[in-house]
């Protein structure tokens, strides 16, 4: 597609990268078909192609972002279904990430919006603060009914409260301790990203991962200094905060790499996995050694299902006679193009695996989307739950904490794939099923 940037504009590396992406788009429109927001709203402006065009126009004109652009970019889930569909290989992710940062720099949101975004950006990446907030939220949760219906503000608070878990697990040592030795001969040494929100909401996922990996002969390191991957702030356009989180992780894992070596950086929340795999791009214009270190970490990053496929996972228990509906997290299927491995692993573990209709459509979780865009998110949640229920499964498995939180409470137990694999290899029954 034609673009209209001046030579001076293109000297800016960000603009030049955006131009590259725009030039790859041939405006064929195929991507509109698999975009959840276009499906719901039927407006080109809420489709990938429309957003690409809005961004192109804004960047070319070097115009501060305006409400009528921001509205449509904000509605984007960053589910990246458009990238899977695009035959031309357009990197929509890099374009929309840039647009989000551009919006944060040039657009002043209404005060309550700013407060909410700043709050989410501060609380979620810090497990102790997030825990504290959830404890507080549980106290006021019974008062949800008193909130006014309608208005954006009321709906958002309601959405947040509805997402708070009824049960809050105790903080767990699995997330702080440092090295978990391999059982038997050591086959590999990996660093595990223990994440931020996940370890508060569902510490059992990390526990299951560690049990399973060590049993398979993997030494698991929780590197001191590593924490939130940066995706939550990144998707809100809070570029500096995201870079700070990423930098801490790169430093922590690079140290491990230098000292005792690492075979992989393993991520068990696929939203974070997509992010860590993109560190190389994020740091492409940073000075050395950051640039090379980031690239190296991105190359080492893998989803836990990728690692398990390589390790020849085998169950030890008899098949449980259960049917699992596998929910493909967008960050796994579109962000990392991992589709076959988790299903194959679940089958190997002895489950009957079924897939819902529209497997490519997002469940509406999308990081903080279910808080920032509650109306669209809840329509997508309902659509996903209906499709999942139609497969009449015993339970649902997913590889991302966001989806697990979003889909829980819909009448079906929702667990992480790794919990099921661990169970069948000798671990405890997943908590959500007990």
């Amino acid at each position, binding site marked *: 597609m034609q673009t209209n940037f001046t030579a001076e504009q293109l000297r800016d590396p960000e603009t030049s990268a955006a131009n590259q992406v725009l*030039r790859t788009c041939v405006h064929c429109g195929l991507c509109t078909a698999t975009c959840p927001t276009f499906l719901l709203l039927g407006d080109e402006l809420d489709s990938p192609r429309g957003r690409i065009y809005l961004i192109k126009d804004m960047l070319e004109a070097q115009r501060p972002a305006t409400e009528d652009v921001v509205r449509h970019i904000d509605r984007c889930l960053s589910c990246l279904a458009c990238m899977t569909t695009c035959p031309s290989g357009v990197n929509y992710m890099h374009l929309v990430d840039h647009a989000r940062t551009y919006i944060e720099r040039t657009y002043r949101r209404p005060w309550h919006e700013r407060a909410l975004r700043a709050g989410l950006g501060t609380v979620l990446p810090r497990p102790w603060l997030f825990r504290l907030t959830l404890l507080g939220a549980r106290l006021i949760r019974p008062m949800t009914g008193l909130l006014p219906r309608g208005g954006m503000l009321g709906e958002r608070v309601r959405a947040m409260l509805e997402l708070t878990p009824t049960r809050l697990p105790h903080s767990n040592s699995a997330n702080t301790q440092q090295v978990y030795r391999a059982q038997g001969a050591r086959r590999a040494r990996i660093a595990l990203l223990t994440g931020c929100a996940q370890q508060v909401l569902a510490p059992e996922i990390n526990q299951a991962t560690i049990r399973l990996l060590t049993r398979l002969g993997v030494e698991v390191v929780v590197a001191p200094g590593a924490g939130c991957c940066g995706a939550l702030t990144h998707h809100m356009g809070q570029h500096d905060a995201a870079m700070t989180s990423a930098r801490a992780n790169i430093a922590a894992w690079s140290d491990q790499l230098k000292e005792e070596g690492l075979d992989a950086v393993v991520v068990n929340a696929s939203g974070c996995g997509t992010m860590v795999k993109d560190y190389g791009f994020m740091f492409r214009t940073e000075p050395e050694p950051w640039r090379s270190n980031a690239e190296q970490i991105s190359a080492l990053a893998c989803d836990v299902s990728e690692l398990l496929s390589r390790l020849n996972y085998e169950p030890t228990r008899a098949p449980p006679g259960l049917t699992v509906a596998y929910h493909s997290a967008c960050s796994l299927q579109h962000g990392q193009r991992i589709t076959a491995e988790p299903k194959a692993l679940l089958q190997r573990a002895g489950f009957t695996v079924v897939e819902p209709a529209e497997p490519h459509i997002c469940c509406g979780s999308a990081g903080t989307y279910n808080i920032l865009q509650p109306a669209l998110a809840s329509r997508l949640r309902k659509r996903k739950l209906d499709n999942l229920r139609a497969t009449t499964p015993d339970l649902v498995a997913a590889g991302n904490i966001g989806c697990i939180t979003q889909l829980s409470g819909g009448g079906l137990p929702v667990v992480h794939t790794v919990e099921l694999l661990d169970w069948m290899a000798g671990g405890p029954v997943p908590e959500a099923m007990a």
Partner: protein
Amino acid sequence: MPRPAGEIILTNMINQPEPKAEILARRDTIVAAFRGMLPPEAVIAEPIRLRPYETDGLSAYRQPPLAVVLPETTEQVAAVMRYCHAEGIRVVPRGAGTSLSGGALPMADAVVVGLMKMNRILDIDYADRCATVQAGVTNIGITDAVQGRGFFYAPDPSSQLACMIGGNVNMNSGGAHCLKYGVTANNLLGLKIVTAEGDVLNIGGRHLDAAGYDWLGLLTGSEGQLAVITEVTVRILRSPEGARAMLAAFRSNEIAGACVDSIISSGIIPVALEFMDRPAIHACEDFAHAGYPLDAEAMLIIEVEGSSEEQDALLARIRAICEQHDPISMKVSQSAEESLAIWKGRKGAFGAIGRISPDYLCMDGVIPTSRLPEVLRRIGEMGDVYGLKVANIFHAGDGNLHPLIMFDANDPESFRKAEQFGADILKLCVEMGGCLTGEHGVGVEKRDLMPVQFKAEELEQQRRIKTAFDPDWLLNPNKVFPLAASSERSARTH
């Protein structure tokens, strides 16, 4: 320096009929009237938000419209049409905006009526094997809705994932499997339309032949110039027992072309017979990882269907024919996944060209299959003269060519040459006894070439038909006919 909002900073504008100054002057009143008859999110009028609607699948041509409306019901479409008729406002209907001939290109004084919100399946009748859907349902959406019961909707344009049935009817779209199942016209049973005056009419029904004039035939392929289509009833067919695709690789375009001709003249009708040349093979393999032969100059995708014995018998005959054309390799798909990947590559072919060139013009001409080798050679020679690369991807079985001319839209000279090259290819098609358009329609892209195909009297007769439906020439008037002729018509009515 920041530029002011809504300023037009791009230059590639195609010639358009003169916008009506009095309409432009009344823009605010008109927009307010639309807001009165439609839900709030259904009217778009801010300059910044109009930009993404300025073009369709042919992005070389752009023109932001006066406004965009997105009605959700036939009644809302009718209200918009009644108002536009009373006020003399031009209307450009739009589906998914995937037209490769600029069929949905707006005009400065026109309102775009987008049918994307009308995406509901209304009725499926398995006993009578037909489905009624709103115009904004995607082509694949119909098959998706019925395949659980073992049915499908046959016409399958490459953009079937995204393109909408209303647009398919307006362009009489074809697709890879049309060789066996025919184009949209052969699979259409009924329509609900809104006329230029805003009346709602039902045409045809649920059976193949309706009484009276063949209105369906007239409206199919009318490129949004006779009415706005809001509902469509199509035939659905029983899915075949099974299907298998085979890839055959050849040493040159001409040899592959000759092989196509041998297959067709042997009397075999494969369900699909598709051609891709070297640049296309490489771009598509990169996207679909389908195991395309990267060492070939040209490749055929040949699909047969039926029981597995029928498939085996047909494939054996086709193999024998291919053998006579010195193939580099032949490979039959061994699984459903492999067939899916083979088709994914072919269906994504146009977009995949984006991997090797920032822009392309996708031509759409038809020639008798016996002339394939000659035409392919001549296209190659023309490309050398213009200094532009061309990728050939097309439905070889019915002689429907899609040469993709690669150019760089950021270089005006390259764009001008590409346009000229495209026109030469289409003239060549006509010269060979073929025609200007296979399935993409005339749109704006080919309107000025119409006199190459039709005599003045023939064009005039077609214009009279348009005038009968749309006396004021308000419906998509800048397309299909040479600009001078359309402008003259529009002027005559005032």
